């Protein structure tokens, strides 16, 4: 048992928030790591070496890339809408950060009491995250409309169609998890799972959620918005330098957040057996470590998918969403209600 001085107890939410905030800053490093993982994994799949020059195993390649992006000329097409064109990447980035404040990035157990590391804790954080995630589409449309390019516009339209199709099953699966738990607070959902993860309780829900999430993030079987062979670079065609970098990073951070969501909602979050949680030292590290490990595994799965499968056509994507995933997610909702009633009783 650690004795916590009396005067610190009221400050605990603040400390927790500050630690969470610093982890939010670290998410930038996480995005760099994601890019590195992507490059190395794709190289492994394709019998290549991947980045190997800058730093050990090419770990600093992303730093070099960032320097390159910062020093590049900031170009703007002649007929671009300046206001939209300049601010859209910032808008995208901010929407990602808004998402980030509600997502806990781990938890510490002090004296067996759980303190989640989130910047803020709200009662409807799952809905809030969903909403903020949907906002990125405005950033994408700002980019596409502002850059006055037909490829960008086509890419953004595809993104719209996909987003509209996939937010629905995504929302329904999230709500069905919430119904079963009896709360829409993501911290509560995560911690209430215990060792019986939601993936075992709602396997269909997990599959639907994972596919919808991939589509939401625009990873390969669903990356019609920037399909290189058709639209050159899709919505981001006209961007260079750090503006491109911001959009690029926003995408990767979005991906990391998606992995967080999967780990939190379906893979049991930071829950560890009680003896670990009660251990004064392990309780501080193990839950967060365990949670991040799961996140990285999910991230690698998402990344690996990109290099192993072909891309859908946009009408097939929309088909898949409305004709397959939506009925499945509704089925899962019914199942979750029933299961929730049964477990609750």
């Amino acid at each position, binding site marked *: 048992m650690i004795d916590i001085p009396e005067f610190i107890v009221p400050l605990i939410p603040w400390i927790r928030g500050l630690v969470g905030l610093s982890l939010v800053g670290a998410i930038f490093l996480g995005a760099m790591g994601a890019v590195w993982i992507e490059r190395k*994994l794709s190289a*492994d*799949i*394709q*019998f*290549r*070496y991947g980045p*190997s020059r800058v730093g050990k195993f090419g770990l600093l390649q992303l730093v070099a890339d960032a320097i390159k992006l910062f020093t590049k000329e900031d170009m703007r097409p002649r007929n671009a809408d300046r206001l939209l064109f300049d601010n859209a990447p910032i808008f995208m980035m901010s929407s990602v950060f808004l998402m980030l404040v509600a997502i806990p990035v781990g938890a510490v157990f002090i004296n067996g009491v759980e303190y989640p590391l989130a910047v803020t804790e709200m009662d409807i954080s799952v809905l809030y995250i969903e909403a903020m995630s949907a906002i990125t589409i405005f950033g994408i449309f700002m980019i596409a409309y502002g850059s006055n390019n037909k490829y960008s516009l086509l890419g953004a339209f595809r993104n719209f169609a996909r987003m509209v199709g996939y937010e629905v099953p995504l929302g329904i699966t999230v709500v069905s998890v919430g119904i079963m738990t009896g709360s829409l607070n993501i911290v509560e959902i995560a911690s209430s799972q215990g060792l019986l993860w939601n993936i075992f309780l709602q396997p269909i829900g997990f599959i639907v959620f994972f596919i919808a999430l991939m589509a939401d993030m625009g990873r390969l*079987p669903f990356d019609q918005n920037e399909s290189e062979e058709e639209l050159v670079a899709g919505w981001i065609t006209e961007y260079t330098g750090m503006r491109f970098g911001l959009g690029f990073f926003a995408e990767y951070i979005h991906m990391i957040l998606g992995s967080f969501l999967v780990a939190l909602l379906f893979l049991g979050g930071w829950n560890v057996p009680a003896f670990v949680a009660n251990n004064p030292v392990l309780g501080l590290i193990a839950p967060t470590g365990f949670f991040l490990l799961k996140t990285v595994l999910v991230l690698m799965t998402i990344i*690996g*998918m990109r*290099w*192993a*499968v072909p891309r859908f056509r946009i009408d097939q994507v929309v088909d898949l969403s409305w004709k397959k995933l939506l009925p499945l997610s509704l089925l899962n909702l019914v199942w979750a209600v029933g299961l929730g009633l049964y477990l609750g009783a």
Partner: protein
Amino acid sequence: MVLKNIKYAIKNIPKKRVTRLCPEVESPLSDRFRGLQILDKSKCIGCGICANTCPNNAIKIIKAPIAPGSGKQRWFPEIDIGHCLFCGLCIDQCPKGALSSGKEYAKGMVKWTHKDLLMTPDKLAREVDIEEGDER
């Protein structure tokens, strides 16, 4: 389903890499690789068949000393390597077998100007350093 594809991709991960780390590991060349030509000055008779054969007119016949430092001059081919296709016709058509293929494909050919790419008979005979003035 897509699972087979994913399985195939995962199975590839431990396999051996086929690419090379380029400047450190040189690419393997076949025995018949056609690189920078080598001139055997003792065999060359300066007939000019190579110059007539060259599809890109990269070969000129010029007067050059028969050995380094020698005052005696004879006719030898001079190849503008910037125009050379490395097709090997000059080598095949040479009646005396004076030309042959070397293995150099980058060495001696990294120069600032096209003018420096002119391979004089001394250079072709490897009497002088062909790497002189290379940009690395």
